[in-house]
């Protein structure tokens, strides 16, 4: 089935489901009877003029109407309902009908977003009074999407909140970034859930349905209060609380079916595969693949007559073994099918005079892409949140979360293996045993080779207290959190059976059991007091606080070989060699912070933030740092001179901020966090030589450390403006910023290698990031067929670019960062097509590009532009002398965008969400693109069949070919091809990926540079809420059904080869498949 057919079928199935659901509910509406009529006029309280287009709704239902040109309405209602009058820019009013038939209403103007409150560090702030760059995300944007990880829902919803997934693996943590390149050491935003710091894995343990508000603090001033770890922004997540009187119970579920988005397009014809594969090595000095005549004869038969030819047989030359000739793309054998996932969430919440409570429980079971064995992620979660106000001045509370996540997968699961299977491979022998092939062995390993089970249990409890003095002018808050996490990780390998021949089934593989446990203990303590008072036109808020945190992580593992029984694969029942190890890390931070906010006459806003912070990761002399910031805003819309145009310009605010923050995160070369980077240490390990029959212990030499080892400082200057037009129906927010990351920890001066150790990291490099972000919102409602049609759209767009501004690399060596280097810049050669004649190959010397120094340069070989005209293609070592190399592109993602369109009408709600990246270059360097050009061991991709062929095959050879081979034109000359002469190892990246190390096609060149820009329909959700009149009869407040599709379609130049999101990493598309997911669910509120 080709891709278009496939998409069509999906679309048909999907549409079909929607239609069924709609038909059922339309019938329900028709059955709905009406009893009473109410009419009246709606006027503005400001100028007493009638307002057309006001939504009039019977509360709790979807029944409603809209006022006409004269502000009049007429609606059929039950006698004892409540009417809700709402209009953009006006305060919503509710009026009890109580038997009335005429209700006139006067709506008061709502000063645009005035009451909208945004969560900020250690407090809340009115949105209009913000002076920093803060984005608030409505949790409605996430509702009813079939996601298990909140980060999936945040992708593309806030400008410059950049969320990437490197794979579609269940339980995969996101990569979260705010505003582009942070530091060469990396640096993620600080994520806090209910004030408690969390990492992206912790975010994975959060049930998205429990979330009520999300704020993104982007500039230095809004983040400064978190000083130590907030240099690259803050994401504040607040969970739901009981906010409504009485007892409320809701239940949500979601059942989904998913399959991989895109899989590599591989050759499935055995003759074509074998012949092309052999051709690829024939053209090299190794020529190590040579199929026998018998093999070709069988392949041809299987190709010409697939039904009538067997795919497995007893080897005619060796009757003790099987022989195989498969003819399919085996990736689909393992991956392509709908797997089922489900989630359930129940919540109970409410409040009384003195108590607020929120209790929830959820269960998620996400199945991965593997279809032949268990491959899943499960999460169980319980949250209990209670606040109690024993006295008028005191509230105490507790917020407790227990989660258990489990990732289960086969021990041998490795996506590489699944993508690399040859079509000639085979699954099972005639006797039912697994075939002695890549496919058979892979299937046997996945099914019988053992499982990995990774469970993580986390219990977190936060005690909070708030005391209020002087009528609330002074508040003192304190909270203490303890989080205990432990992982229970185990895997085992067991032997599995492979059929080598008739009567020859062997047990192979290793058998060992492994178990490890981690104990994480995390303590957070905060105390802060806030003073807030308005004196006439002066509004003052002051906050001062203290924060301390420590974390201790203890890990140990045990492994033993020689498991006795495959059915009880435990360490206890193993007899072989054993291995144990242990690791303990801990860190602590402590800081004090303040905020001063002053607003004059609701127009002029000034704020100062600061934090004095210390971390255990640095030596005591350089441990502490002070990080101040300031910001100011001017609400121009409040000025008198704006009065005449206030009906057009409803909001107009300009903002500016500057601040300096610290980054304490240090990572080693493998990306692991470094906790004791200033202490030279030695680690034990096993030696490599047997002494007295055993491998003795050894202790590694200590690393070099530097005295110059302290905070990276990150200063950001930010300017922004918020503009709202027509009562904020149209709203735009724009920010532009410059962020300077200074004193990044990196190797200092490039010292001679006689030093004999890796140069210690010290504070030695700077970078600068410039960027901007824009969000546009348009919302409106109007009358459609007598019902209110609410329309809401939001578009976001952001960009950033980064440059190295300081680095000790005086020669501008290209193998290292250099001053002026832009992040993502891709050095390579300019393609000049192919050599066409032998004379041409002799005229331009490309010997320096020959992989392994051994391939022959022949017509059809890639030809490059000789930039310096010296007759030799060379790659230089320095920026100033790059020889024939030049910058040919940039791999950084640019212009990330998201578009959210939603409307609701008469109980229906529809939301679509589109997301993408508008500019990003990508140079392929892997099997998934280069197949046999990389190495002759894996691949065989259809796109590569358009390779250069100097001559057509002779008639004798033609007779040997299968019809499919001839039909594909592979026996013909192909001088005008997309790909060069087919030489295995021509694109081998094992020689290195650096500009100088890389050879052949592994060196980036313009001819095969791809655009990894993409646009993706991330989600479409269609819901329908049953009329309340119907649901009330069975005492249910609300019933909503919905269908939703995730990752529905995408467009990108790279999507011919792999999922466009799979190249965000350096994995070159070798990612666990991303999933298309279609789901169905229900929300019920009792």
């Amino acid at each position, binding site marked *: 089935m080709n891709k278009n057919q496939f998409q069509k079928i999906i679309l048909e199935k999907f549409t079909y489901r929607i239609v069924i659901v709609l038909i059922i509910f339309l019938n329900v509406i028709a059955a709905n009877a009406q009893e009473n009529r109410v009419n009246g006029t709606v006027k503005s309280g400001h100028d007493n003029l009638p307002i057309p287009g006001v939504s009039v709704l019977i509360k709790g239902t979807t029944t409603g109407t809209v006022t006409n040109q004269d502000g009049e309405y007429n609606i059929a209602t039950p006698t004892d309902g409540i009417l809700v009058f709402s209009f953009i820019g006006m305060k919503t009013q509710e009026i009890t009908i109580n038997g009335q038939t005429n209700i006139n209403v006067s709506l008061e103007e709502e000063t645009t977003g005035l009451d909208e409150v945004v969560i900020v560090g250690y407090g809340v702030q009115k949105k209009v009074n913000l002076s920093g760059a803060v984005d608030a995300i409505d949790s409605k944007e996430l509702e009813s999407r079939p996601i298990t990880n909140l980060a999936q829902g945040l992708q593309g919803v806030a400008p410059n909140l950049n969320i990437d997934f490197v794979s579609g693996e269940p339980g995969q943590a996101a990569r979260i970034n705010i505003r582009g390149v942070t530091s060469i050491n990396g640096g993620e935003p600080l994520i806090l859930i209910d004030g408690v710091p969390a990492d992206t894995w912790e975010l994975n343990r959060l049930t998205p349905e429990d979330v009520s508000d999300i704020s993104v603090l982007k500039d230095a001033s809004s983040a400064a209060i978190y000083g130590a770890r907030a240099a690259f922004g803050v994401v504040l997540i607040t969970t739901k609380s009981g906010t409504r009187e009485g007892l409320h119970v809701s239940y949500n579920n979601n059942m989904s079916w998913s399959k991989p988005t895109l899989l590599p397009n591989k050759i499935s014809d055995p003759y074509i595969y074998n012949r092309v594969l052999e051709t690829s090595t024939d053209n090299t000095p190794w020529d190590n693949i040579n199929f*026998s005549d018998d093999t070709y004869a069988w392949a041809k038969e299987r190709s010409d007559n697939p039904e009538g030819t067997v795919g497995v047989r007893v080897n005619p030359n060796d009757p003790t073994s099987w022989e195989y000739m498969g003819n399919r793309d085996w990736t689909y054998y393992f991956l392509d099918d709908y797997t089922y996932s489900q989630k359930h969430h129940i919540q109970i919440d409410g409040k009384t005079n003195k108590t607020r409570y929120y209790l929830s429980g959820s269960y998620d079971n996400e199945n991965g892409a593997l279809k032949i064995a268990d491959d899943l992620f499960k999460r169980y979660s319980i949250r209990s949140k209670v606040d109690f106000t024993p006295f008028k001045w005191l509230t105490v509370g507790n917020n407790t979360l227990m989660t258990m996540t489990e990732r289960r997968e086969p021990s041998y699961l490795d996506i590489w293996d699944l993508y690399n299977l040859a079509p000639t491979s085979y699954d099972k022998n005639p006797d039912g045993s697994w075939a002695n092939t890549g496919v058979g062995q892979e299937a046997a390993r996945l099914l019988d080779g053992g499982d990995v089970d990774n469970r993580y249990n986390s219990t977190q409890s936060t005690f909070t207290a708030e005391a209020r003095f002087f009528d609330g002018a002074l508040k003192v808050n304190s909270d203490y959190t303890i989080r205990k996490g432990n992982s229970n990780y185990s895997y085992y390998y067991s032997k599995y059976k492979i059929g080598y021949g008739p009567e020859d089934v062997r047990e192979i593989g290793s058998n060992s059991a492994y178990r490890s446990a981690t104990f994480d203990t995390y303590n957070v303590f905060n105390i802060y007091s806030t*003073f807030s008072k308005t004196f006439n036109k002066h509004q003052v808020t002051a906050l001062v606080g203290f924060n301390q945190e420590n974390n201790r992580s203890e890990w140990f593992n045990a492994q033993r070989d020689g498991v006795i029984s495959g059915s009880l694969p435990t360490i206890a029942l193993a007899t072989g*060699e054993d291995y144990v190890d242990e690791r303990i890390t801990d860190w602590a931070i402590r800081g004090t912070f303040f905020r001063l906010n002053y607003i004059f006459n609701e127009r002029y806003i000034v704020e100062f933030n600061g934090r004095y912070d210390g971390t*255990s990761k640095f030596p005591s002399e350089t441990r*502490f740092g002070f990080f101040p910031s300031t910001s100011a805003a001017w609400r121009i819309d409040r000025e008198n001179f704006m009065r005449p145009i206030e009906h057009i310009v409803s909001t107009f605010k300009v903002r500016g901020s500057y601040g300096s923050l610290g980054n304490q995160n240090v990572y080693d070369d493998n990306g692991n966090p470094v906790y004791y980077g200033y202490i030279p240490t*030695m680690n034990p390990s096993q030696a490599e030589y047997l002494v007295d029959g055993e491998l003795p212990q050894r202790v590694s030499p200590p690393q070099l450390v530097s005295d110059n080892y302290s905070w990276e400082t990150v200063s950001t200057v930010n300017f922004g403006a918020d503009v709202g037009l027509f009562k904020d129906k149209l709203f735009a927010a724009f920010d532009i910023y410059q962020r300077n990351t200074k004193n990044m920890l990196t190797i200092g001066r490039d010292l001679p290698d006689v*030093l*004999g150790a890796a140069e210690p990291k010290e504070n030695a490099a700077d970078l600068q990031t410039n960027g901007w972000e824009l969000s546009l919102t348009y919302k409106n409602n109007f009358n459609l067929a007598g019902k209110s049609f609410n329309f809401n759209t939001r578009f976001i767009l952001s960009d950033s670019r980064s440059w190295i501004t300081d680095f000790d690399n005086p020669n501008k060596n290209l193998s290292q960062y250099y001053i002026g280097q832009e992040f993502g810049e891709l050095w390579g050669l300019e393609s000049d097509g192919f050599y066409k004649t032998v004379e041409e190959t002799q005229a331009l010397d490309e010997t320096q590009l020959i992989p392994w120094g051994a391939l022959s340069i022949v017509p059809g070989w890639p030809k490059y532009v000789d930039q310096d005209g010296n007759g030799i293609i060379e790659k230089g070592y320095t920026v100033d002398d790059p020889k024939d190399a030049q910058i040919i592109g940039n791999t950084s993602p640019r212009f990330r965008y998201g578009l959210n369109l939603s409307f609701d009408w008469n109980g229906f709600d529809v939301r679509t969400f589109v997301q993408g990246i508008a500019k990003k270059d990508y140079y392929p360097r892997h099997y998934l693109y280069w197949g046999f050009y990389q190495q002759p061991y894996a691949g065989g991709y259809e796109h590569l069949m358009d390779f250069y062929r100097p001559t057509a095959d002779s008639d004798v050879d033609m007779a040997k070919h299968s019809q499919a081979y001839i039909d594909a034109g592979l026996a013909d000359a192909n001088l005008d091809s997309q790909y060069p002469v087919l030489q295995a190892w021509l694109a081998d990246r094992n020689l290195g990926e650096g500009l100088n190390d890389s050879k052949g096609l592994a060196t980036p060149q313009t001819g095969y540079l791809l655009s990894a820009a993409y646009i993706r329909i991330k989600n479409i959700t269609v819901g329908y809420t049953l009329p309340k009149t119907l649901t009330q009869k069975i005492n249910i407040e609300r019933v909503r059904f919905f269908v939703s599709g995730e990752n529905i379609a995408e467009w990108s130049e790279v999507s011919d080869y792999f999922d466009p999101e799979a190249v965000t990493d350096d994995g070159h598309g070798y990612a666990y498949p991303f999933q298309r997911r279609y789901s169905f669910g229900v929300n019920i509120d009792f």
Partner: protein
Amino acid sequence: MKKIISIFSITLIILFSACNDDYMDRFPETSIGTENFFKSEEDLKMFIYNFYSFAGINNYGDDGYLTTDNSANTGSTELKNIMLSSNPSSATITEGWSWETLRDINLFLENFRNADISEDLLAHYEGLARFFRARFYMEKIKRFSDVPWYDQVIGTSDEELLFKSRDPRDMVVQKIFEDYEFASQNVKTDQPVGAVNKWVVLAYKARHALHEGTFRKYHSELELQSSANTYIQIAKDAAKEIMDNGGFSIYSTGNIQSDYSSLFNSQNLTSNPEIIFANSSEDEVKNSGWWEWMFGNYEVSPSKDLLQAYLMSDGSYYSSQVSPETNSFVEEFENRDPRLKQTYAFPGWELINTGTYAQGGGIYKQQLQKNFTGYHQIKGFINSTDQTTQNGVDFPSIRFAEMLLIYAEAKAELGELSQGDLDNSINKLRERAGMPNLNMDPVIDPVQEARFPNVKSNSQWKEILEIRRERRIEMALEGYRYDDLMRWEAGKILETEPRGLYFSGLGKYDMTGDGVEDIVLLDLSESIPGAGDKEVNSIGETLIYYRVGAQDSDGSFYISGDNQGYIESVKERGNFVAPKYYYRPIPQTHTTVNPNLTQIFGWE
């Protein structure tokens, strides 16, 4: 308002009161700092293990990977790339300039005295560290000749040391042999099995002294010829001490067909009397793996030149045969030094372990393929399918046989060789192999003579030629040939392209020595018949067909003449530019960082 101010003040006082106390001090618990280490003998021992690095299984490929006359190689190897390159330079030759090991050794030497142990033991450990330092520097000298000498740990601010220039070879070599001298005096003999002892130290001392001495002697560009004998003397003395006092002997049970080869596929060499140091393996503890690439045309293949160097079983030269160059594959193996059939896959040899690059098992018919000689190596090949066996192969990193060869060569180079010396050294190897003795004043083999024209300045040059042959045969394909050719100043030999099997024309050939034909060579114009049309020989086996042609044709393999001649493995070997190619440049990235490091011998 006062209350507010006082509450604020109290909060502030609390907040700032406890900032930089021990709460913020966090130290590693599962790794150790230098100040707490180097306290006991156990600590010293554990650190010394970091320096262990001895020849292993992969050495069986090194005659190919280092580029010698013993093997052909299709892979990318440094010297081959240099010889083929139009302009090799420090920009393209980037290996070898690493110094981590030296730093660690010097760190040990600066700290080991903190251990609370006897002077005697301290000297033993100092000796071990200095032994490893000497070994480290010898490798640097071999590659770069002049290198900076450091006997202390360098700090990031030690500008003078970091940026110093090369020290002269002579000075560095003196330091190396001071270290060897100290080590051989102080390292103990009674050490656990597998640990470095005095004999290991002496063996390296002998090996490196012979290298340095002969290198100086034959490389006039160094202008150190006058001191050559000093080091040859050291080699002789060190080898002699091992011979006299080490208690080692040549492993021989009288079985001339397998005693030699059993050293290379043994599961346990540690108790073998010939082994001075074995790189041991044990299934599931330390898996040796085995050199699976040696079979089935992967990258390296042994050459005809090495095969021809083996003597006839009566001690005569192969070159003295009637038509040595046109012998068929089967004929080549007839009446030869028994070590040949323990090194090369021979007619009638059975392949059992098929987990290689070869196709199929059974009585082996040389699989012929373009770019490979057609010969296959069985020395070190584990011809067993048992995984435990494959994982547990020991490698003889230092053999007593090498000491005997060093002794004989040193004596001959010094002009002191006697028949007694030969009987005590070379002839012990001959005896194990079942070969006649080598006697003084041997007949000249014109082939061997042509190979080493520069030995004739020696009084005992005839003996030297035959000692060199014995060394080549005894140590064949163990990875020592490259160093030997370099120190004998024989780089020009490498320009000859290695050859493979000889075929006298098209037609059928016996490959297994049973007189029945196994393969057919066809002309390029012919096509290989289909599966059912192939001829079956008298013992019921289908013949294997090859089409032969010249280089770059589409033949199954390349042959030197017109449908007859040698298999050609390598199209071109390039030029060996002397003396330049006996050395390597310091990689450009390092001379850029430290401009005081200048290139020598014409490298740029």
